[in-house]
């Protein structure tokens, strides 16, 4: 994977691995690592196994570790299910709107906190940190009443704004970290060279925060994509997301485990793909200190 293949990481790895380690120890460590990974993956494997089984194999008292007659039926069933595609599209729209909005709005605030000294800065940091800890579920009824007054219930916009606010504090805080990681000397040098403040922003701060923006969006993406209680309360089934769909699929006259597991896989795919795509940035974010040093 990209993490391990990046040359920077390799240098660090080699340095650590070679220091005072016995061969037998390494074999044991490798064995534990493999066993650990297999255990971690077992539930994932079991979903796949279930999702590819025909209905009669799913509900068998003696579970088999491999589908005897592998089938895509559960997947086609999920896709054909009422509202599945609709809710998938809704989920994508809502997530993208919320993440993009949070990045734009949050970036501005992060810039202010990281690069300016002003009266009230501390108070704003306090607010940003504190609101992350508010139990959002408790706000459901007042939130609903408020959005209803603004005619924003049963609309993707209303949910998008809600999600935006949900992920905003974290976005501000994390971007603040990335922005203040950019050496101030760069700004200053550019200003001396005759750049305006706006140019400093467009030519220096924004490009250098790029990886940070991507890394921050992961969190927002996961939060917005995985949320189901708010959207389920605010919107009707045709305006919900896949997670809410999944929740409802489980209780119509008995659980249809096969399509449920297939649906679960489809639901997870965007997140997995997203993870793999920005995987390098996760590592970049986590090791940003080393880059800058």
């Amino acid at each position, binding site marked *: 994977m990209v993490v391990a293949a990046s040359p920077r990481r390799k240098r660090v790895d080699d340095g650590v691995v070679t220091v005072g380690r016995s061969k037998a120890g390494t074999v044991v460590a490798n064995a534990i690592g493999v066993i650990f990974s297999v255990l971690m993956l077992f539930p994932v494997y079991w979903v796949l196994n279930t999702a590819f089984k025909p*209905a009669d194999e799913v*509900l068998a008292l003696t579970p088999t570790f491999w589908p005897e007659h592998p089938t895509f039926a559960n997947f086609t069933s999920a896709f054909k299910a009422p509202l599945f595609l609709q809710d998938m599209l809704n989920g994508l729209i809502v997530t993208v709107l919320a993440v993009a909005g949070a990045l734009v709005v949050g970036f501005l605030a992060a810039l202010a906190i990281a690069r300016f000294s002003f009266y009230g800065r501390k108070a704003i940091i306090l607010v940003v940190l504190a609101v992350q800890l508010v139990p959002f579920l408790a706000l*459901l009824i007042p939130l609903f009443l408020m959005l209803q007054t603004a005619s924003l219930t049963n609309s993707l916009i209303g949910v998008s704004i809600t999600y935006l606010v949900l992920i905003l504090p974290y976005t501000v805080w994390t971007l603040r970290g990335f922005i203040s990681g950019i050496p101030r000397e760069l700004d200053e040098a550019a200003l001396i060279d005759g750049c305006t403040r706006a140019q400093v922003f467009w030519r220096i701060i924004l490009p250098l925060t790029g990886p940070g923006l991507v890394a921050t969006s992961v969190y927002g993406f996961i939060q917005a994509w995985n949320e189901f209680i708010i959207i389920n309360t605010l919107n009707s089934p045709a305006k919900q997301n896949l997670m809410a769909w999944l929740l409802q699929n489980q209780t119509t*006259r008995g659980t249809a485990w096969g399509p449920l597991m297939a649906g679960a896989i489809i639901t997870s795919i965007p997140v997995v793909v997203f993870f793999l795509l920005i995987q390098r940035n996760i590592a970049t974010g986590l090791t940003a200190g080393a880059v800058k040093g």
Partner: protein
Amino acid sequence: MKRQLVAVAALAATLLGAAACGSNDDDSPTTSASGPVDGKGKTLKVWLMVDAQSAWKGVVDDASKRFTDATGAQVSVEYQQWANHLTKLDATLAGSDVPDVVELGNTEFPKYVFSSAFAAINPGDYENSGTWLQGLKGACDFEGKTYCVPYYAGARVLIYRTDLFKAAGIAAAPKTYDEFLADADKLQTAKKSDSKFGAVYMPGQYWYSAMSWVKSTGGDIAKQDGDKWVGQLSQPASVQGLQRWVDMVKKYSKADPTKNENDQAGIFAQGQSGMFYGNAWELGAAEQIKKDPNDPNSALVDTKVKGKLAAAPMPEVPSFLGGSNLGVTEKSQNKELAAQWIKAFTDSTSMAGLIKANALPNATALLDKAATDNPAIAPAALAAKSSWFPPNAEKWADVEKGNILQTMLTDILTGKKSVADGAKWADDQMNTTLNES
């Protein structure tokens, strides 16, 4: 001239509707479904539960079509899931953009009727209202007025394996409760070598079943004493019924004491038990499963028990009468139209469609017809005639939502509490919940 009359009627209806919103709940006018209503350009919002979508969508569409032909109004039906419909309903009814017609389970209705969520209707406007099933209608009555219309019902029956009965030397379905136990014994003996086999499949949180047993010995769940509700489960007759159920479950059932009845047909289909207690339609659900559960027209796959099942009323045990009602929301802007739609959806034509789809009709007058028209639901139609329903208390839905009875049953079955202690605990919980202001 005629058009003018219609316009006046529509105007009057609008004014009435507006007045109803502003007025106090006690003297709200009754919504009529008799006169002609011009609904041109209007769209009626209807919330039905998902059962209608999966089992009798055709009936819904047909009723809506007849409604549209008569009134000119369009219908938009939204299907709700049982898991979370109440939370959503609460939030939606709190606002102003509400559905005009809402379906709720009969045991869920009183809470909403007491909270003025529904408008009063005039029963005489609806077909068969004279013989509406009491178990459904009871939930609609409040202070002399009727706030909802019975929709359909379900009654529970004994479903058993004919092949295993034969192998164990049992000729026919049990006629008495003692026979039922004796048959269970015979099944258990015949399959002694199979450690996974249980003569009866009875999941532990199946409270509709346990309460039926309570009723079978003359017990009760709760009753009204003046303006207070008093839990009755710790009364001797109720304890006797509970004990009877617990003894039977412990002896013959291998089912999970923490599961409810949702999945029972699928589990029974694995062939590990001889009998279960379920809705009429669950017989079919056990014999054949949909190849694609999300497709209403899916091909069916036979299970291990295909062609080996039969149903009969559970002897000496009165059935819980489950089902749904339909109400016109108090905040609806189209009350008269809503009432008209309900009228079309609960008339004899629609009921015939429901019977075909293995649901019981909303009136006793139709039960016999149901039994002859559709043999599959004959035992259930019979069972519905001796049925019971939970206390018609404002807060009964909270007892269900609070899992009080389910928790008691699991605690008793797993030995955490004795029957007497469990019943006492449940009574205390119900007394608190039902009498809360």
